[in-house]
């Protein structure tokens, strides 16, 4: 309509005044620069250039994500249908700043704690967090008994949360997250979903935390001669992995595609069919459960 076109004209002129590239006005209005493929595609259509220059990622992180890609998609890039989880986006962040606070204690098995800062600028408002883990890379320089059980202690360093539900920082969160370092594993994942959920949901743009954990040898292990107090010093700071569900229209919604072969947007009469389908599903579901009860 004239009004909306007028508005669009207003925003485009104001945007242009602010020096934004005209092609960037084509971005989906999800509150932050369009994520992923869309903005570079618009840019190519507009001025023929590819993606913006990029910082090079950590090689170990890139190796992990390539391994994840092979597990999730075919060679042609089609998502494998044998996956049940709902996330259609996985983001890996390496800390933009980190330093060791102390050298740890080999007697008690306390490992050197690390002060880490992760920037979450690339997470868009339409991406909802489903799971997050700290990813430790083990290389063969690390020597330790075949199995270690560890307790993780996480301290979120600063406040600045936008919603009231979170306590004022620094707030500490001691995990009973038992996990095992095993010789043959190259990576160890420490689940931090419970801690990061409110931060990501409140659109926090960076997360500052210190992580340390204390490890003990697995008691089941028979003590043997070559066992000695282990010196497990992790050579590299952990990466942060976020498993997200991108709710935008461009993202692939697996559960949706499995349920309804075609989306209502492609054929409007489908809505009647869909609502009939869902009513029928409820009805049959009801019958099924009553049959179960009987």
């Amino acid at each position, binding site marked *: 309509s004239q009004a909306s076109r007028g508005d669009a004209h207003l925003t485009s002129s104001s945007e242009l005044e602010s020096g934004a590239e005209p092609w960037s006005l084509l971005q989906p209005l999800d509150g932050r620069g369009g*994520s*992923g*493929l869309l903005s*570079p595609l618009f840019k*190519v259509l507009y001025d023929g250039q*590819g*993606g*913006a*220059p*990029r*910082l*090079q*990622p*950590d090689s170990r*992180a*890139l190796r992990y*994500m*390539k391994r*994840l*890609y092979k597990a*999730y*998609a075919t*060679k*042609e*890039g*089609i*998502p494998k249908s044998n996956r049940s989880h709902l996330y*259609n*986006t*996985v*983001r*890996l*962040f*390496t800390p933009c700043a980190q330093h060791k606070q102390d050298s740890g204690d080999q007697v008690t098995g306390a490992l050197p704690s690390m002060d880490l800062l992760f*920037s979450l*600028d*690339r997470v868009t408002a339409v991406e909802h967090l489903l799971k997050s883990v700290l990813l430790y890379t083990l290389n063969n320089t690390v020597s330790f008994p075949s199995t270690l059980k560890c307790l993780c202690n996480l301290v979120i360093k600063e406040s600045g949360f936008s919603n009231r539900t979170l306590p004022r920082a620094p707030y500490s969160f001691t995990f009973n997250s038992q996990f095992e370092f095993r010789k043959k594993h190259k990576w160890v994942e420490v689940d931090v979903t419970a801690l990061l959920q409110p931060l990501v949901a409140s659109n926090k743009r960076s997360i500052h935390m210190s992580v340390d954990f204390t490890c003990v040898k697995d008691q089941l292990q028979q003590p043997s001669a070559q066992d000695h107090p282990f010196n497990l010093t992790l050579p590299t700071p952990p990466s942060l992995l976020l498993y997200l569900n*991108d709710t935008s*229209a*461009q*993202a*692939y*919604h*697996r559960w949706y*595609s499995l349920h309804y072969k*075609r989306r209502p947007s492609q054929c409007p009469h489908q809505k009647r069919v869909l609502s009939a389908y869902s009513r029928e599903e409820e009805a049959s579901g009801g019958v099924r459960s009553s049959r179960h009860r009987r």
Partner: protein
Amino acid sequence: DWETGSSDLKKPLVPASFNLSDYFKQFLFPQNECELHDFRLSFSQLKWDNWIVAPHRYNPRYCKGDCPRAVGHRYGSPVHTMVQNIIYEKLDSSVPKPSCVPAKYNPLSVLTIEPDGSIAYKEYEDMIATKCTCR
């Protein structure tokens, strides 16, 4: 009329070199009918391989070809398609003929390096055409 008819009868009905099956083909299956075509590209051709890590090859496919006049159910086309064809042929040729376009798609998983150096695995809807239709 028998005399005039009989002389006509002596003329060969169809030229000797005429092939009946070709003759009927033009009605049943138009030449270069609307169908799916491959287009395999690698992101290095677009100079995107510095930020798209996987997949290495991408075949978005596309639909090309003529739509039969009596398109019917063959392409899953609505009746509107035939109506549009009749308008084009009988009433107003500025109204375009039905076009050969994708009807269904497959998603695509992409592994990209973001401007800040983080790495993203994302699954995008509607990135590979899998079926064509006339609309």
